[in-house]
């Protein structure tokens, strides 16, 4: 028994040395593998798209591995300058950014195109976690207000691009830090009040026509079933017609016959639900729940307020992806461009997400060396 225990210890320590959190990795790999199968089905059963997805998975895993090697407290040191740099990049996107698909999100660096809002998904929680962990927890009201302002700056800059999905994720990541840092319930109440007061302002001044249309469509998709309501109606048909057991892999008529739009990206959950049914959905949600639980376990067990807050925020933000994506394709939320994390086809957001998991792994495995 003892020898086995030692061996386990040894095995454990190999992963530890590699800075890999095994349970988290297993959850992630399950989602990535599922993504490969679904992209094959949703992408017209072409292997080319599967290769692309596999390649970006490879890049993302490598990215995660590299990030995991960086001791988390390094981020604390660099939080402020990186945050300032990030803001400058967002401003320059608005000034000289590359326009694609009706939004100005990309910065052309000459050798590559770069989306600063993606990296801000990591910088904002780092910055806010650093900011609130300067003092003893729970956070004071003045700190909360300042933190809010810090969150609001990048959020508004990204919303202006316009990229509603990303700005929503960034705002959440900041707010989660503030919440986890123990902001008083009263304050949270006031903030929610202010936020709801902000809605009409958002509607009248910040939202573009197409965004408003999305919200209207969400409220009543059947009013324009062939136009703006088409996506959501076809998506609901796909999910609903899957039934309990699903139509089987590669057998989903809504996706295979191309009635479903954006099949391999934002609407991949509909493909999944159609082909694997309610049983598949339950399993998928269970995997997500497992990943979130593991992330929160890492956060709770982190040694420092900064790493706790950062790990918690990254995990909960990951869950926001899940919630917003599934919510929007199943008709609970208006359509905003948020992918199903790790499953949807699309390299940029996956690399960011995996880098986030790299940070989580670093927090999980470096803790013994930084007390």
């Amino acid at each position: 028994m003892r020898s086995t225990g030692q061996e386990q210890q040894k095995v454990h320590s190999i992963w530890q040395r590699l800075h890999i959190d095994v349970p988290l990795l297993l959850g992630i790999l399950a989602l990535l593998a599922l993504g490969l199968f679904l992209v094959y089905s949703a992408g017209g059963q072409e292997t080319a798209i599967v290769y692309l997805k596999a390649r970006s998975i490879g890049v993302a895993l490598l990215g995660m591995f590299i990030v995991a090697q960086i001791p988390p407290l390094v981020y604390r040191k660099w939080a402020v300058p990186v945050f300032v740099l990030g803001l400058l990049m967002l401003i320059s996107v608005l000034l000289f950014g590359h326009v694609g698909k009706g939004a100005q999100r990309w910065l052309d660096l000459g050798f590559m195109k770069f989306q600063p809002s993606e990296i801000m998904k990591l910088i904002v929680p780092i910055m806010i976690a650093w900011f609130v962990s300067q003092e003893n927890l729970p956070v004071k009201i003045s700190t909360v207000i300042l933190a809010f302002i810090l969150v609001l700056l990048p959020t508004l800059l990204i919303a202006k691009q316009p990229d509603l999905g990303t700005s929503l994720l960034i705002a959440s990541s900041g707010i989660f830090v503030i919440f986890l840092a123990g902001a008083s319930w009263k304050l949270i109440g006031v903030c929610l009040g202010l936020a709801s007061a902000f809605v009409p302002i958002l509607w009248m001044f910040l939202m573009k026509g197409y965004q408003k249309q999305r919200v209207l469509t969400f409220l009543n998709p059947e009013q324009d079933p062939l136009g703006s309501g088409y996506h959501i109606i076809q998506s609901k048909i796909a999910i609903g017609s899957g039934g309990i057991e699903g139509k089987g892999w590669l057998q989903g008529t809504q996706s295979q016959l191309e009635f479903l739009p954006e099949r391999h990206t934002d609407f991949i959950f509909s493909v999944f639900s159609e082909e694997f049914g309610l049983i598949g959905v339950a399993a998928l949600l269970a995997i997500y729940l497992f990943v979130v639980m593991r992330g929160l376990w890492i956060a709770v067990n982190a040694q420092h307020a900064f790493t706790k807050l950062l790990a918690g925020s990254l995990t909960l933000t990951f869950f926001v992806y899940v919630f917003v994506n599934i919510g929007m394709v199943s008709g609970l939320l208006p359509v905003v461009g948020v992918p199903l994390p790790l499953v949807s086809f699309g390299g940029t957001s996956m690399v960011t997400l995996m880098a986030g998991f790299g940070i989580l792994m670093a927090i999980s495995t470096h803790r013994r060396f930084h007390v």
Partner: protein
Amino acid sequence: MSPRRIVIRNHSAEANLFARRTFIAFSGVVLVLLILFANVYTLQVESFEKYQTRSNSNRIKLLPVAPNRGLIYDRHGVLLADNKPVYSLEVIAEDVDDLKASIAQVSKLLNISADRQSKFFKLMKRKRRFKPVELHSRLSDQQVALFSVNQHKYPGIYVNARLKRYYPFSDLTTHNLGYVARINRKDANKLERAGKAENYAATYGIGKLGIEKYYEDMLHGTIGHQEVEVNNQGRVIRTLNYTPPVPGKDLTLTLDIELQMIAKRALSGKRGAIVAMDPRTGGILAMYSNPSYDGNLFVHGISTKNYKKLLESKDLPLINRSVQSGYPPASTVKPFLALTGLEENVITPKTEVYDPGWYQLKGLPNKYRDWLPWGHGKVNLTKAIEQSCNIYFYDLAFKLGITKISNMMERFGFGDYTGLDIYEENKAIMPSVAWKRARYNQSWYTGETLSVGIGQSFWTVTPLQLTQALTTLVNKGERKIPHLLKAKSELIIESSGNAYHQITPIEYEPRAPLKLRDDNNWDIVLNAMHNTVQKFGATAHKPFKGSTYDASGKTGSAQVARRKQGEKYDAKTTSENKRDNAMFIAFAPFDKPEIVIAVAIENVAKGGGATNAAPVARQIMDQYFGDRVITSKKRNVKPKTATVIAATPQEAG
């Protein structure tokens, strides 16, 4: 909460706080997951059937497949209405490498006009790239051959064949068959109201006239369906199910196309109509109206120019004179009037009338003339028919009065639809006191009765009505329903896979017979008609000289325009459309009649029924009987009285 007293961190308090908040957040996560799951559950379990139906209606489409229209044959099996492939040139843009260049080359090869090309490109814009677009709708055989040789050079361009109606005898059969033409909005509405629209979903044309219209339901058949799976663009992915259409029934008509040809030839250059019927059944053997027109013109959509030409022609080719034109029957109805006189007991076969050449009512100045200026002298019934003596019939009509005449004539079917199986029929007019009151709000004049006595005045008949009345006469009261449809044939496919045509003859219920007080009266009148043809010097003797089938008949010359008292008629000085019409009715053989004929020819230049209409009837009968020699058992019933006045060179009425 925490006063600013210690700067040292309380790690365990922080950890506790953080754990509490994390737990709250985790609870939130679980709650949200439950909401998401509940929502998906609602979609996939509660509303499963609704979404499954919608998913299926997304992907499964029913493509209608048109049934083949039934064919139409004459009584001997000669094809009268065919379905012939029409070739169109179609293009699927998606499969063509260089659309513009290919279209240009093919157009040059097949000599397709620039007009058609630009029309094609216009159509192209509205169609999906994988759907066929027509470049040319009717290729000639030569164009088809030319393209077929070169087809390998033009992938994505191909010849498509569709079945369209074709009438091989063209104008010879148009008035009987009618034609099939594109379903227009009016037809579509009608089909909609009748609940038949679904059955016509893939059908190009519908019967517009004649047999094609009357038997539309039989000819059309039942639509088939191809159940296919389509993608979001409507492209067919695969066929799931196929229900073949049921072809329409083939129809065999009573018409004899050879008689029809003779009728056309006999009427060529004349305006008029012929109806020949088998009195034993009521089946129409020939029915032709001249001039006619080519029904094929309408199948593909007639050009405005051609249609205008037909509409504006003075000869009115669109009118089916056999059933639509009301002609004054003139002397052809004298046998029927004689029968009425015998039946009403106002005359006997021996009754004689003296004909001085004119007839005058007591106390009235008007003189009614005989066609023979010096008169026929003493005339009995038989002679009156043989010689077509007007004076005898003026007197008879006067004795009968209009009411008895019109009552009897209505029993023969005058003034009413015969019930022939086409819709174009006209009732024509059998005048009566009530009719005149209703039509003109005038009372009836005795003078008009006299005119009715020689088949003039308001009285009009269609050639078909004459044929029908004569059928009743030769059948001695047995009445038949005139009809064109002889039999229908249906394709039966047994479960074993055997297929055969089941031919069902059509049964026509006989109508209630016309009963006379004395059946001898039939024979008296029929004998007189027999004499009219067979007796030397009788009005219709000459045209049937040498015929071997023992024909009987009655001539008629109808005055078309009103003439003043004493005005002389000379065809040469009368304008064409006011000249007399020539009429003739006949049947043969005398004993067991097999064919009855009515002929009407409009505005003849010279002579009357005997010289113009009777020869037409003879040509048809010659064709019908061929070499058969038929003689009657009771040849030439001799009139008991009567000095026969030698036939004058002048034509009888």
